[in-house]
């Protein structure tokens, strides 16, 4: 059991970070405001959870403008996709082992 837990990615052990990554897996890109609505969190909370995802290279950031407003969109990077997939298989393994 202990080994199986070690296979889990620490970055994804938070509900919001996991949610962000799940949403990015299912979509090409998502804007900051849409993520906020999906997760139902505040600006600051979302930003603080996006940061570790950005820093670990799991998420790509594209900064743009709609009119004068900034429009930042996020997408899953190849590294993020593979990290998420191995996290999923680790979860799967854990479920299998408890059966």
């Amino acid at each position, binding site marked *: 059991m202990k080994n199986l837990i070690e296979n889990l990615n620490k970055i994804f052990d938070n509900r919001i970070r996991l949610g962000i990554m799940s949403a990015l897996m*299912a979509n090409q890109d998502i804007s900051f405001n849409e993520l906020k609505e999906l997760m139902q969190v505040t600006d600051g909370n979302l930003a603080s959870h996006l940061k570790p995802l950005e820093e670990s290279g799991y998420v790509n950031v594209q900064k743009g403008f709609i009119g004068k407003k900034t429009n930042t969109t996020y997408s899953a990077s190849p590294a993020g996709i593979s990290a998420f997939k191995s996290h999923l298989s680790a979860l799967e393994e*854990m*479920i299998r082992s408890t059966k």
Partner: protein
Amino acid sequence: MESRFFHYFVFQSAFSMSAKTQPLETLQDIKQMMERSSRFISLSGLSGVAAGCCALVGAWFAYDIIYGSDRSYSTGHNRYKGDYGTDLTTGNEISLSEFMGNRLFQIAVLTFLAALILAFLFTYLRSKKTNTPLWGNQAKRLMFNVAIPMIVGGIYLWKMVQEGIFGLIAPGCLIFYGLALVNAGKYTLKEVRYLGFGQIILGLINLWNIGYGIHFWALGFGVLHIVYGILMWWKYERS
């Protein structure tokens, strides 16, 4: 010392909790977030039921005009007919303005609008309940993909009206609407696909039963919508 022990204990229990009991819940969370972010899930089953009821009422009025015992349709229709001597049920040439003024066409437009407004209302209420934005990216994607077959179908049927091929309009509506729903299944509740298949099959059968268009309309736009709506309501909204 005591607080350190306490911290350690909390950390331990939280950790082992998340490890032992949560993988399944975590996977469910992931699945839910992927669905929520990519599909328009607020579509209410009651919208389907309401649209189906509108269609049945509309079909009832239309049936009365086409088959009414007092033949009020033929006399009423003469007003639009002028000297051309054409009739929708016999399907000869007809001008576009005549068609627009036709009672059947007016009923169809009214029915469509009523169904659309009611469908929107129930879906709006549901989006309030599930706390999902009504007009987000998911809704836009859904609308865009529904609009493609609908607009193409609309133009095609419009041309058919101009050519006076009225017999193919009812099956055409069912088929194009069915295609739109099959397409929609990728962007909202996936069961919409099956409603789409039902409409397409009805439309295709209707192609070999020209003249029974109103019956197929009532079946497709009325009965199928209601059955679908009840099933969806039962599956997702019953609480």
